[in-house]
């Protein structure tokens, strides 16, 4: 089952103002993809610790429509579904992760990841939609 796992460092980074999820203009939440052999773990902190697939033939991985607002004390991080489009064969992946490309110290801090539990392979012209549903995450 694809389940979201937050990187442990994310909660520390929130308290140290590493992220600013006000809007797309203040952050660059980006998707990374890895094989099962290079699966991320919750203790990973930055993108430098991740071995992604080659992104040849893949469209932009930047998530748009980022918002971070609260409702009765619970913060909701939301975004527009990201549609990845293949313009040729794309390397097989299984894990889909999120990081913020904006911060420089630490650089590219990780947010969390999903395990699709089986390999996914995109052929030319195929699209893979990362559906963030109602929220990417909530903070209560």
């Amino acid at each position, binding site marked *: 089952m694809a389940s979201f796992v*937050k990187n442990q460092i994310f909660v520390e980074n929130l308290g140290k103002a590493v992220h600013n999820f006000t809007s797309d203009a203040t952050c660059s939440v980006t998707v990374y993809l890895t094989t099962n052999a290079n699966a991320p773990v919750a203790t990973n902190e930055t993108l430098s610790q991740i071995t992604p697939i080659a992104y040849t033939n893949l469209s932009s991985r930047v998530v748009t429509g980022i918002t971070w607002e609260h409702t009765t004390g619970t913060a909701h991080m939301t975004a527009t579904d990201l549609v990845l489009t293949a313009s040729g064969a794309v390397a097989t992946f299984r894990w889909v992760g999120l990081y913020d490309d904006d911060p420089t110290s630490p650089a590219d801090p990780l947010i969390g990841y999903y395990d699709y539990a089986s390999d996914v392979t995109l052929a030319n012209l195929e699209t893979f939609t990362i559906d963030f549903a109602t929220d990417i995450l*909530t*903070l209560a």
Partner: protein
Amino acid sequence: MSVHALSPAERQVYVIKTPTFPQFQFEWHPQAKRVYLTRIGSTIGEPIGFEIKDHGQAQMCVFHFLRGYRQRSLELENPTELIKLI
């Protein structure tokens, strides 16, 4: 404090979106381990995948269906190619 994210596993039915094929809606039902296709204008889902145990398998099931659909569409658009094959 708790950080919580809704995952596909927490939804009883997961919609697999295919924006380039708006005429189709695909759903993965994790408990039934099936992928269903509902054509636009219909309210009845057709099972197209069985024993689909995880999200990755559901995604690939949809890809395989669409690859066949695209191939058949190309053949119908280019019948001369079909004749050549026959």
